[in-house]
């Protein structure tokens, strides 16, 4: 069943946490809500779960309105950031809790608990208390507990952010595998762009209670629609356009060529964006339509890449990041050179 969110509004006092949010989540897809803290992504998830009440708008699941249905009857499986396993119950009892609430009979419950523990590879931990398990194990039990009552959707609220980096990566793969196997509609909230890019079918980027852009990971990386998305997903140089009336795109006194195919949907162009790895460094003698003379301001060696900040001669004060991969020749501090901004890599940002 598709989840359809329409014109959702949520306020906390003066703060508008959700500002007319609309969204469609297709059956069986994995959707990530991505954004900085305070952008409203967790609030949106909690409203969907029924843990917060919206001030306006509607949520429909397969055509039926959820607004009047309390959280406990919505049949969504929720996994929280802090593991939230009941500390007084064993892993098995935690997994069976939702079934107890639904008054399943004992035999059916036992087999379901076993099935769920097998699903997360923790059958041997059934009788352990949460305090006797590692963070990663607890979160897998929490996942099993959320899935046990066969929910119509799985809602994950930053499920990995309390875990160590290595466990986080393991669990990332495991959650995705379980989700694909069960074909369950899943929404995950995260502030980690790498996590979102790695796991999601569809990413919803949010900022200040609004949706900035919705797209597949590839779309968002290649074609960010706004400066916010460009900067939040990966790194992107934002080149503010020269003031004054213009018909093309003038930056630092140079008319830049931009491939229209790469033009974003924004109406009023405010800036151009370009990824650091798309820029090439050339000698001072280089010339061409999108080549600007510049000088090297800082050089940071980061192992597999070297990050160089250059300053265009005609726009001093504006730093542009360039990333060189591998063992390329690294320019010296203060060295004069030219940067080439390929037309097909430039994005128009609104």
């Amino acid at each position, binding site marked *: 069943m598709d989840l359809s969110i329409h014109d959702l509004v949520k306020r*906390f006092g003066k703060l508008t946490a959700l500002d007319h949010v609309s969204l469609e989540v297709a059956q069986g897809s994995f959707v990530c809500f991505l954004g900085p803290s305070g952008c409203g992504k967790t609030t949106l998830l909690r409203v969907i*779960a*029924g*843990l*917060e*009440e*919206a*001030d*306006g*708008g*509607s949520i429909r699941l397969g055509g039926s309105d959820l*607004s*009047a*249905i*309390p*959280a*406990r*009857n*919505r*049949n*969504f*499986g*929720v996994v*929280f950031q*802090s593991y*939230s*396993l*009941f*500390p*007084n119950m064993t892993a098995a009892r935690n997994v069976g*809790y*939702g079934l*107890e*609430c*639904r008054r399943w009979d004992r035999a059916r419950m036992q087999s379901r608990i076993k099935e769920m523990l097998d699903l997360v590879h923790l059958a041997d931990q059934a009788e352990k208390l949460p305090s006797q398990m590692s963070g990663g194990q607890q979160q897998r039990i929490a996942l099993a*507990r*959320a899935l046990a*009552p066969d929910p119509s959707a799985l*809602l994950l609220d930053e499920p990995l952010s309390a875990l160590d980096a290595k466990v986080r990566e393991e669990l990332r793969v495991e959650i995705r595998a379980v989700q694909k196997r069960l074909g369950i509609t899943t929404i995950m909230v995260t502030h980690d762009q790498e996590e979102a890019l790695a796991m999601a079918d569809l990413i919803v980027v949010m900022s200040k209670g609004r949706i900035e852009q919705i797209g597949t990971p590839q779309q968002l990386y290649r074609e960010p629609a706004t400066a916010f998305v460009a900067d939040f997903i990966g790194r992107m140089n934002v080149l503010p356009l020269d003031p004054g009336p213009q018909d093309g795109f003038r930056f630092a006194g140079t008319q830049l060529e931009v491939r229209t195919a790469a033009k974003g949907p924004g109406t009023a162009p405010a800036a151009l964006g370009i990824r650091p790895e798309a820029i090439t460094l050339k000698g001072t003698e280089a010339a061409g339509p999108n080549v600007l003379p510049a000088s090297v301001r800082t050089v940071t060696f980061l192992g597999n890449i070297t990050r160089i900040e250059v300053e265009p001669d005609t726009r001093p004060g504006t730093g542009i990041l360039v990333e060189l991969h591998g063992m390329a020749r690294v320019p010296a501090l203060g060295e004069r050179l030219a940067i080439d901004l390929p037309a097909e890599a430039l994005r128009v940002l609104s």
Partner: protein
Amino acid sequence: MSVTTAGASRPASHLPGRTSDRSITLALSILAAIPILLFLLLPLTGILLRGFETPDGFGLGNFVQTFGAERFWRLVGNSISMSLTSTLIAVGLAYFYAYALQRAAIPLKPFLRIAVLTPLFAPSLVQAQGLILLLGRNGALNRFLGFDIDIYGFWGTTIANALYAFPYAYLILSAALAVADARIYESAETLGARPTRIFRDVTLPATRFGLAAAIFVVFTLVMTDFGNPMVIGGDFSVLATEVYNQVIGQAQFGLGAVIGIVLLVPAVLAKLIEKRISSRQHALVTAQSKPLTVKPARGRDIAFSVYAYVIVALILSVLAIVVLASFVRLWPYNMSFTLRHYQFDVQNGTAPLWNSVGVSLATAVLGVAITGLTAIVVHKFRNPLTGPLSMLAILPAAVPGMVLGLGYVLTFNDPANPLNILYGSFALIVILSVYYNHAHAFLISSTSLKQIGSVFDEASTTLGGSTLTTLRKVTLPLLWPTLLGVGVFYFMRTMVSLSAVIFLVTPSTQLAAVSVLQLSDRGALNQAAAFSVCIMAIVVACLVIVRTILWLAGARNVTLIR
């Protein structure tokens, strides 16, 4: 749209759309509110009303009469000077005692921590008892060493009350000194500050809120304490003893009520100021703070060890002498060992002791049920009653036991009150004990509930659990060690409580602490001592039993002594 109309005005954390749950939560809130109104708010308004009631209708007659008497102002002077001196002594000594335990390396800290709390296990007149046995007319010092000390009066009351209030001050100051950010101390040290300067510039400012709280709590406690001045005051009267004389001695309820109101004023003021001060105490210690570890420093450690052990010796010797006196034939003339004071063949025998145990157990059970319910309602079921309910729940913190007890007499001995049937029964004493200690017990439960947090409720809700299922299967199983601790708190306080219940005891409802008072009053010092020892033994036994239960159940970090 239903969402917009239904939910616009309700608090954000509320879970929506559960009609049956909502009526359950409202019903439970009302259930929690009714007894508070009847047994807390009603008696307090009762005092105010009676204060203004005169033979010619409502008026200021009682106030005019009381304030016009020269004797009243002398008592006010006595009360204030005694309370100020006591507070200064208790808080001053307790500060450095807590400092020694938190910030110096001294041997046997666990012993020192427990030993200093022992006055909490005894009725609030045991200090006076001990001082009389030690320094009184027939005390050990006067008798054997030929001193001629007159302890009865200002200094006797002041010292006894300072000893009585010491553990209360210590608990607050110890908590204030326990939190410290090592980084600040390290910075001060690397900047070249000497220890005394660090103390003045870092430690003292960081603990000034705790210090203020301790001063207010101790001042109120001492000002409204009744047992010690009664036993050792001699001709030195204070307001607390005057209320007793007016009400019990002369049946002057109106005049007693006026003094009750007068005693309520400093208590309420102190509470308001304390709240104001503590609301400004935030973020002294942040998540990044490094806890302070005590580094040995020879000179300082020796000095503080000596200090701490002297204080403990003082506190314990006052108690020890009471224990000793209970085992000798006739203090101090005949010091041969005997158990005959434990026969309790005077007055009502051991009946008051068992009455006290029964009342304290009943208070523990009822108290846990009431404060547990109130705390759960306030923290887990938000509704329009939540705010007023939590305010009422902590109101007793500003009401001295004596004043509340007086309110009970004034309210429930009125034949027109349908609850008059409770008057003269143990039930009313139990209820009084519950509400006298309500604020503290409520705060203990609240803190624990806040630690449990809302995430388990939310997890349970999304898994399909109703409010009551969550309560039964998740909240209560997590809360029980705390609730047991609350029960112990109620039991302890009720066993030793004197000033709250003094107005409610009748010949058929005698209580142990009151018996101690009456025995001392009659000069039966050895029997009084034996009675005090029994009270202490029962309290200690209760602590040991509950500690064992908690230990066996694996709940090891529940504080029992508060």
